[in-house]
Structures are given as C-alpha cells and as structure tokens.
C-alpha cells in the first residue's frame, strides 16, 4: 500500500503528461479541435435519433427520446472508447516498457482518464439537450457523479483485464471489436428496456453498464433518487471489476516484456 502511494506520487506528473499528450495529439491539425468532443456525440445522437425514432418507430411515452438516447450514448461511448484504448495501451507503449522502468498500470489508467475528460466535455451537449427539450434540471443531479465514478472504476478494471489479455493474445483486438458491437445492442441505449422479452431481462441486467445508465436516467429523466439496490449494483459491480482487473494485471505484468 505504501508502495502504491509512493509510486502514484512519483508518477503523478507522468500520468498528467500522458493524458496531456493524448489531447495534444488527438486534435493536432484539426480545424475545430476540441470542439469535436462536443460535436461528435451530438452528431452521432442525431443520426441515431433519426434512424430509431423515424424508421424503427421507437417511442418513449413519458420521457424525451433525445435525452434518453443521449444519456445512454455518452455512457456507452465512454466505456467503449476508454476500454479500447486501454486495451492497446500496453502493447502500444512497448518501446517505453522495454527501455525504462515505469509502472505499467499507468498506461491503461491514463487512457481511462483521457477519455474521462472527454466524457465530461460531452456533458455540455447533454445538458444543452436537457435544457432545450424542457426536461429540466433538479437537485438530484448532484448525485450523478456517483454513477460516473462507478463507470470509471468499472472501465479501469476492464481496461486492466483487456490490456493483460491482449498482450498474450493479439486476437483479442478482433474478438473485443465484435464483443463491443454485441454489447452495444444488449445495452438499452436506443430502445426501451421494456421491449426486451421478460425471460431475457435477467441476462440483460447482468451487464454493469445497464446499471450505470439506469442510475443516470433515473435522475435525469425521472427526477428521482435511484433505489438503494441500484446504488449497490453500481458500486458492487464497479469495485468487483476494478479489483479483478488490478489482481490480474499485477499478477501478469512482469511477464509482459517477453510477449510484447
């Protein structure tokens, strides 16, 4: 424990620099720059809204579909992008790992933080839509960070697991690409969860992302404090995956150097 604190202290600046690097590189030579972080989710949401509300006639009787869509989308997009980047971060930084001693967990972690900052930027268009559609803001919104922190911990845990697997098994990049597509469809982002046949609902509820989205929508769309069991599912699943991820990563990190 003391070691962990020491290494975090020592490598805090490296973490900061890695996140800053990703930002600088991401928007280099793009005219709109950081504006893309705001624009991109709005545009994807618009496309999805057009497709799903007009062609497939998904309708949400009580709530605004745009807000429903956007809240699910930004959470899923965060997970999808961060976990993908975290997965390739160890393999991608091989030239560093092979030459200097750096705690390796810093690579997946920096990716999750980098995408996390982007995620916070996407809250701006989310709130713009909340206000424009008249959904309104209430005091319960102050609870939202809890859901986001759970989402972050879950993503870091998954990032550790995926980064470890992908070092030993490069096929994982392809497998996970397919998995994430499937995952997107089993997460109620664009459809109503009630549309799922009752016998499948339990399986869908095993998906931690379902609970982070549920927590967020409960507050944003239904103006209510989520039930206690939702809080427990969120925190429990995120801590579980975070610890599994840390355990696996720590166990195998010394072997990375032979495989990357």
């Amino acid at each position: 424990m003391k070691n962990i604190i020491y290494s975090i202290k020592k490598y805090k600046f490296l973490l900061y620099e890695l996140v800053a690097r990703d930002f600088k590189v991401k928007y280099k030579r793009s005219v709109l720059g950081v504006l893309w972080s705001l624009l991109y989710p709005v545009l994807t949401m618009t496309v999805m809204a057009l497709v799903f509300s007009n062609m497939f006639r998904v309708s949400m009787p009580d709530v605004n579909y745009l807000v429903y869509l956007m809240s699910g989308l930004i959470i899923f997009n965060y997970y999808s992008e961060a976990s993908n980047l975290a997965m390739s971060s160890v393999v991608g930084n091989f030239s560093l790992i092979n030459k200097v001693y750096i705690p390796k967990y810093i690579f997946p972690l920096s990716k999750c933080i980098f995408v996390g900052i982007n995620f916070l930027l996407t809250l701006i268009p989310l709130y713009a839509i909340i206000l424009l559609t008249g959904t309104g803001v209430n005091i319960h919104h102050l609870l939202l960070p809890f859901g986001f922190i759970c989402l972050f911990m879950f993503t870091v845990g998954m990032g550790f697991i995926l980064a470890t697997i992908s070092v030993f098994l490069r096929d994982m990049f392809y497998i996970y690409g397919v998995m994430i597509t499937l995952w997107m469809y089993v997460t109620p982002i664009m459809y109503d969860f009630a549309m799922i046949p009752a016998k499948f609902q339990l399986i869908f509820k095993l998906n931690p992302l379902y609970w982070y989205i549920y927590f967020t929508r409960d507050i944003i769309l239904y103006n209510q404090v989520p039930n206690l069991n939702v809080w427990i599912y969120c925190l429990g699943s995120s801590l579980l995956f975070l610890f599994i991820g840390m355990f696996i990563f720590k166990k195998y990190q010394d072997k990375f150097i032979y495989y990357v």
Partner: protein
Amino acid sequence: MDKDIMIKVKDVSMRFNLGIDKGFSLKQGFVNLLDPKMRKKHKEEKKKNDFWALKDVNFNVQKGEVVGFIGSNGAGKSTLLKVVAGVMKPTKGKVEAYGTICPMIELGAGFDMDLTARENIYLNGAVMGYSKQFLDEKFNEIVEFSELKDFLDVPVKNFSSGMIARLAFSVATLVEPEILIVDEILSVGDLAFQAKSEAKMLNMITGGTTVLYVSHSLESIRKLCDKVIWIEHGVIKAIGGKEVCDKYAEYINKNI
C-alpha cells in the same frame, strides 16, 4: 563497508523462451489434445527453446565505482543492465539497488514524434520520473545544452536524427543520478556536439556517481572503469581490474 554497496546482484538468472513468438496456435493445441505423443514432443521442444541469457550472475558494486561490462554480442550485457534498471524481473535471483537509477539504455525512449521539442522535454522527463517543478528549473539548461532553441516549437518528426539524439541526450543527462547505466552511448550528433556530449558523459562518470557501462571499445573501458566484468554466454568469465580487458582481447584473438 556494507553501507557503501550500491548495487547487489545475487544469483541472477534470466530465461527467455525463443519459441515465444510462435506462441500458441489453434492447430498445435488441437494436435496436442488428440495425441499424447505429440504433446510430449511439443513440451520438449518448448524446453529446448529455453535460452538462458544470464546464469547465476553475482557481483556487487560499491559507491562511486565505475564498472565496465565487456563481452561479445548477445552475451547478456544489455539484459543484465535491464535487470538492474528494473525493466525486467530476473527469472531467479535478486537485484537490490540503493539510489536513483538513470538508465541511458536507449536515448529518446518515449519521444512522441507528433509533439514539439518543448512538449517532448516534459514528456521524456516525466518518463524518467522527474517532477514538473524540477523540469521547469532545468528547462533552460536542457535547451541550452541541446542548442535547439530555435526549434523548440517544431514537432520532433521534422527533426533530423542528429537533432533528435541531441535533444534526447540533453534530457537524459540533466541530472546527476546516484546510479548511471550507460549502454554504448558516449557521444551523439555532429562533431562539435560529439565532443561536448562526450565531455559531459566523462564529467558524469568521473564525478563520483556509480556507473555501469557497457561498451565494445576496450580503450574507453580501460580509460574509465575501476572494475571490469567480462560476460560470455550469460556467465561471468572474469571479474577484476583492467587486466580483464587484456584477457578478453587475448580470447578474441585466439578465436578469430
């Protein structure tokens, strides 16, 4: 006396599996599953691929000592330095190092070609574990030494390789670490900069830091080192003063 020991390398062995790049293939797995004979053969083959880059290496380095490592290519010198630097964990044995280590195993590790020289100084410094405060203080010194003041805000990908090496050298040598690990890089850049960087290296080496130095130039080893370790096929062949260099030269001459 024990207090003055900076690095303790105890029974260090390092195993690589040369067949690792073949990895696990579905076909092999399937064959193994069906045929126990093939399974055994596969296991033996795997063992045959084991390669010991280091075998039971033992030595201590005292404070302020300059230790030179000699040996032919692939003898295990660089692996040993990587183990001491903490980049690799030894398969067996233990390495203890007391003090901050500055590994100059390869310059410019962690440069991002898309970033400017200024940004890379901070990134590379962070990779080596320095704080922002420290880098702020030393920034001018680094820029001055590298003589790249006019190119600070140019992306490194537009630099010539010599310029990159100069920048990397300047960042890498900005501190006087307690333990310096040098793998065959004494001078970089053009003639003028080579002289400058060599002087700086010599300054660092003779300035009282503990140095582990790998080189194929016996001349520079003789000039700089107090202690010479000769490694061949992962085993220490000789350890001692400068006379080890002569033994090594003799051995090479005999084998030509």
